[in-house]
């Protein structure tokens, strides 16, 4: 297996694994935020703000994998 086929196999799989991780993370964040809003509807704005920040951080991990994919795509 040369570099080209290794990369073309590994890049999509890598993105998929990263997406699994941040998907689980986003789901947990959303679950927690929804439960918190359900318990304390008057704190919705604060909870949403914190939720968006943490969601952005969780999502960033996939984005890093995505950027890495684009950096290495030229070598395929």
């Amino acid at each position, binding site marked *: 297996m040369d570099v080209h086929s290794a990369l073309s196999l590994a890049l999509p799989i890598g993105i998929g694994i990263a997406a699994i991780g941040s998907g689980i993370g986003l789901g947990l964040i959303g679950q927690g935020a929804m439960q918190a809003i359900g318990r304390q509807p008057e704190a919705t*704005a*604060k909870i949403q*703000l*914190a939720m*968006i*920040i*943490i969601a*952005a*951080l969780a*999502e*960033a991990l996939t*984005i*890093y994998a*995505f*950027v890495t994919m*684009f950096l290495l*795509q*030229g070598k395929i």
Partner: protein
Amino acid sequence: MGLEFLARVRHTSTWLGGVIALVAATYVSPLLGLAFAAGVTWSLVNLQLLERLIVPLTGPARGTPDARRRIGFALLGMLALFAAGAVLLELLSPAALVAGFLLPLAVIAVKALTQALLASPAWRGIVNHRWRAGLAGLALTTATWFALGALTSAGGAPVGRTVVAQSHGGAARGEIHGDETPTEARGNATAEEKGEASESKPQGFANVIGLLTGAFPHATWAHFLEHYEVLVFSLLVALILLVVAHRASRDPQLVPRGLQNGVELVVEGLSSFIISILGPAQGPRFVPFLGTLFIYILAMNLFGLIPFMHSPTASLNVTVALALTVFVYVQFIGFKELGPLGWLDHMLGNPRNLTGWLLAPLMLPIHVLGELAKPISLSCRLFGNIFGEDMLLVAFASLGVTMLPFKHLPFGVPMHALFFPLALLGSVLQALVFTVLSSIYILLMLPHEHHDEHGHEEGAQHAH
């Protein structure tokens, strides 16, 4: 019939001519599209001047000095128009110019024919009967299908070959190569191979600057524009925002209306949002910086959704510049608010007792790395999201194009329309995230004693 008919002809010809010129510019050659557009414009101006000439000659106001003045102006305009036509015939392809010139006349003929047909008793006999109308529609569709097949099978390339060329060449141009002859397809593929070899630049939708470079491949200014493409687009966005802001605040009213009202709504919303993060004491100072950041990033993100435009934030250069601005600003705020010693104290993790001082050598690299990681994560997040969005749209647009390869049509199914709401949502969300994270970095740098809202401290800790 009459003037209202002419107005409708103008309207139809403008739209039709624009679409045909764009298709010609994209699929045949940009100069041909330009020539066609020039021909349509020439013809439309000619019709307009004729109307100007005939109305004072035959209308109720004929003979008055005003009407005579109008006739003089119209004649002068005609002279200028014919001179311009001669110049255009010298410069551009005559065939496309004549085709563009004939388009409004064809529109007039078709419209007149349609009106005659709609008034005829045979048409009414067909339309007013359900079964006859259905049969006629079916016959018309079938005839169009076969006519299209007969028209396009003559010059079209073999399907398999174009598909191979497309999948080989990266495909993501959002265009079909279906109506190319085999030699052109091969030339395209080799050109794209060369492009890949020299520089692995992913291809997006065609934009204005790309089309200009294609139209004038030897002009130095076109290469300059192509090289600084991202810069040109971001400056264009800044210019648009400047004009909007200037127009909104030019004549401030106590009771705002129209544009001023909208801009005030945005500014007030942003201001209250940022103050809710940074607190009422510190917040208002940072509203201009953070609010500008939000509006600028949002406008740049959304700019790519306009046809023939390009998102500047889909380039890492722009997002790194934005993130570095935030980084420098945050460090500057830290120096100004805490002083050099206080800043160092912050970097050492605010040691107050023996344990703190023992841990300080460990805390310093952690804090320095944390500060350096902030711009990297900010820029990569924005770039990755916007670029990914654009690539998603391009991928689905090319999928829609390849859905209809058997007819060699120069258009496809707009598959990417489904993802426009997603792109809109993502653009707003990423601008919001960038602003919120920037304000939290500022919040972390500010002296903590002055801060009295503990609810946001927790969010800030998470964000670190």
